[in-house]
């Protein structure tokens, strides 16, 4: 390559505590090229870029701009070296115009004239083919317009090394194409563009070279023209690691939770869940794979009753088949009505017919447990609050991703945290700390939680112990559905295996387990079926025993899927 080197990173490392986010990374960026930074979640892409942009400072190693060593302590330093970053989450003032946002924070000593700024912004926009009205307020803008403002902000400050963090995550395929055209024009203008992405087809279509990161390390930088999607996937996911997780055959598999065509939009109007359908079955672990932010969190929170849906159904089949009827959940009239529909049978299988029986006779039959359900109880959990779901008698346990921000209260001790799920029981005004205290002790013993006592605030426990407390509590509720989001994130090997064993044990007890994971090695060894999410859509449901990491990796980055989408998109347009 004859192009001059714009930026060079040599032996750069960054540690967060004992965790290496980047380890001895070397990276070279040339003038007038688009370099894609590719890698799985948590492989250190964003950390690496943040070190160029002045958000983080490397623990060791050095950065060179135009051959000279550069000390980048802040975004301001970065701009001095002509480096600008467009973050995934926009940092714009809603009530300002595009131009006002663009000049915000610039102090060049000159007199401020908004007309001049407007003019200059339009000039830059025209040069690269952006369409933007500098006088438009941010709150009137679509997501892609906001992104344009962010990019212009960087260009206005004279950056010639641009870093884009997953720019297409918030865009429609058509908008992405437009953005890529603009990026190509910038490249022709001699700018260097670093684009963080995990969409393989984008890497292949826009970049000149690809740098692949895995677990904080730089694996290789290759010419895009000489590589293929499967080769990149292999570099990204690495060799298969044998974990030897125990996976017993599923038994008594029955449909427990049917997700039917659910969709959800986020605050920016982006589809975070897009017509998702699948079934979770009792006695099975359903794995959910996907790049972070593909809708996993929203999906679980929607099922748990914490998020509102745009459309779709969450059908729950409460285990009822061959179980006695009780008046606890049903009134007398409901029981009679259901009997008339032929929904019950006697122990020997003959259908129940109450006609001609006296009130007391029916009550006696039901109370003695001789009348059994034909079917499971079917109910729609959509738009129900967590409290309503519990009141329906649905035992849904949820281990959320954010353990101390959602699952547990960091400043409360183990006992009070046990109480979160159960404190409502009974009609007493007062809380009963006896049972939660026993449960806390039991969990500490059973799961080897290392804690000074059950009266220690959970925030003082280590990550693995916090997770054991949370999982232990959720399992103690004897769930019919157990959802766990990244339950082994940040845990050491032993704690991780404890959690796998607990999930498997629940599966054997007939619980429908949903496991959201990021480590593909774990997913293929632990789960019976694996659902792959990409940008809020289900791209595949694979058999856990036969699925390979590469296969999952490809579905996670949805190469084929996007082409279909684009084709159908253009078809629709031509029809109109």
């Amino acid at each position: 390559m004859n192009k001059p080197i714009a930026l060079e990173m040599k032996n750069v490392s960054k540690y967060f505590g004992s965790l290496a986010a980047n380890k001895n990374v070397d990276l070279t960026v040339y003038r007038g090229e688009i370099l894609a930074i590719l890698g799985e979640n948590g492989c250190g892409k964003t950390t690496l870029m943040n070190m160029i942009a002045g958000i983080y400072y490397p623990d060791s190693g050095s950065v060179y701009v135009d051959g000279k060593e550069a000390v980048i302590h802040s975004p301001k330093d970065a701009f001095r070296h002509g480096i600008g970053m467009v973050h995934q989450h926009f940092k714009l003032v809603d009530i300002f115009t595009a131009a006002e946002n663009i000049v915000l924070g610039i102090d060049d000593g000159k007199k401020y004239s908004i007309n001049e700024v407007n003019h200059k912004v339009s000039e830059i926009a025209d040069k690269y083919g952006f369409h933007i009205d500098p006088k438009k307020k941010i709150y009137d803008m679509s997501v892609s317009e906001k992104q344009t403002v962010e990019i212009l902000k960087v260009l206005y400050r004279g950056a010639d090394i641009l870093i884009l963090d997953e720019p297409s995550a918030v865009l429609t395929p058509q908008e992405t194409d437009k953005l890529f055209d603009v990026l190509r024009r910038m490249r022709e203008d001699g700018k260097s563009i670093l684009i963080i992405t995990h969409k393989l087809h984008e890497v292949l279509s826009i970049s000149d070279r690809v740098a692949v990161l895995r677990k904080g390390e730089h694996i290789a930088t290759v010419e895009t023209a000489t590589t293929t999607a499967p080769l990149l996937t292999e570099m990204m996911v690495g060799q298969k690691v044998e974990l030897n997780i125990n996976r017993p055959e599923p038994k008594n598999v029955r449909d427990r939770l049917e997700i039917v065509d659910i969709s959800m939009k986020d605050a920016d109007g982006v589809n975070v869940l897009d017509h998702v359908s699948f079934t979770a079955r009792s006695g099975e672990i359903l794995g959910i794979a996907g790049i972070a932010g593909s809708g996993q969190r929203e999906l679980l929170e929607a099922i748990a009753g914490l998020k509102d849906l745009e459309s779709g159904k969450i059908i729950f089949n409460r285990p009822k088949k061959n179980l006695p009827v009780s008046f606890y959940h049903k009134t007398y009239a409901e029981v009679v009505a259901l009997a008339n529909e032929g929904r019950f049978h006697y122990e020997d299988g003959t259908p129940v017919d109450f006609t001609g029986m006296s009130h007391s006779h029916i009550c006696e039959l039901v109370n003695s447990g001789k009348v059994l359900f034909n079917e499971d109880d079917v109910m729609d959990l959509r738009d129900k609050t967590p409290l309503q779901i519990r009141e329906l008698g649905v035992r849904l346990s949820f281990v959320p991703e954010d353990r101390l921000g959602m699952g547990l209260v960091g400043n409360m001790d183990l006992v009070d945290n046990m109480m979160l799920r159960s404190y409502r029981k009974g009609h007493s005004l007062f809380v009963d700390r006896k049972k939660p205290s026993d449960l806390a002790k039991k969990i500490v013993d059973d799961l080897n939680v290392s804690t000074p006592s059950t009266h220690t605030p959970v925030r003082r426990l280590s990550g693995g112990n916090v997770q054991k407390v949370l999982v232990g509590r959720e399992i103690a509720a004897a769930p019919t559905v157990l959802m766990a989001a990244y339950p082994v994130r940040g845990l050491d090997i032993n704690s991780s295996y404890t959690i796998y064993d607990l999930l498997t044990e629940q599966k054997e007890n007939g619980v429908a387990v949903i496991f959201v994971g990021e480590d593909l090695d774990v997913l293929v060894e632990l789960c019976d079926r694996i659902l792959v999410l990409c940008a809020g859509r289900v791209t595949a449901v694979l058999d856990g025993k036969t699925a390979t990491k590469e296969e999952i990796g490809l579905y996670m980055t949805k190469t084929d899927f996007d082409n279909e989408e684009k084709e159908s998109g253009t078809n629709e347009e031509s029809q109109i």
Partner: protein
Amino acid sequence: MKNRKFELPFHIVKRDTMPLWKSLAVRVAAIVISLLLCSVLSVLLINKSPLVFFETMFKAVFSRDILIWQFAKDTAVLLCIALAITPAFRMRFWNIGAEGQTLIGALAAVTVAFYLGESLPNGILLIVMFAAAVLAGGLWGFLPAVFKAKWNANETLFTLMMNYVAMELVNFCISVWVQSGSGVLTPLSVGHLPTVLNSYFLLIAIVLVITVIIHIYLRQTKQGYEISVVGESENTARYVGIEVNKVIIRTMIISGAICGIAGFLIVGALDHTVSAESTVGGLGFIAIMVSWLAKFNPLAMIGTSAFITFLRRGTKNLAIRAAFPDIVVGTVLFFIIGCEFFINYKIKFRKANTTDKGGKA
């Protein structure tokens, strides 16, 4: 690699936790140091021996029985208002409207006594006064809570503004009641709380009972538990199915209602009248400090309210230059609040030598 930035020779690190005895020792040390500093100031500024100064303070508070009773009474009133705001504060709902909630309770009690005093027997009158004060205070707590719950209105501004609404309502009522235009309502002869031992004892006893009730409410009841969960993390509260808005509204009604009780006690046992300026007289704000210093623990608030009252009463009528008592109070509070920093953080000095050597090697 040259660092252009000036680096301090130390940096500040958050502590994990400090054992109780150690944190108590830090607090005691802070008070001792602040008093020593006050002594130095006393010599420098008013040319008096520090011992004389502190002796005067103690004498002003404890020298006679009646002064001790007044001290206990002032402590109790302050404690009652501090107890009122504590449930809201534990929920991280920054209710700075205790002033107005107490005042509106007092106004409601006076209004009842003013119009019904002649026609009702004293016992029933007191009950109606109590109920009116509780309802009025509760309403003053309910309004900001509803706006917070439904439209996420800023509770601090809202409760603050409600203070002024209450004050102007008092001024309006007095202008209607007092025809002379003096703007002062002479104490009413009806609606007095019965005298047990003296006119303060009953008030003090009632506040102590409220203290115990609030303590139990916050620690032992389901509602108190919900308050803590909402305060710690609304996400967690929603996750376990707590209706956050309901808890916010319920807690603020309770908070306002206890302020209303404080207003009723001030009217029924002490003032028998109401005034926008002097009925509560800023106690609604001082109570925030009491609650905060006690870490929202109702039992500890007995101590903090007594301490603040001691400082206020001890320096009130000192025959020395007017600004000096304020300097003393300010210094002591500065140290007490400032020492929290050393309880939560520790200062680590950079080992300049080792890093330099490391760099060269």
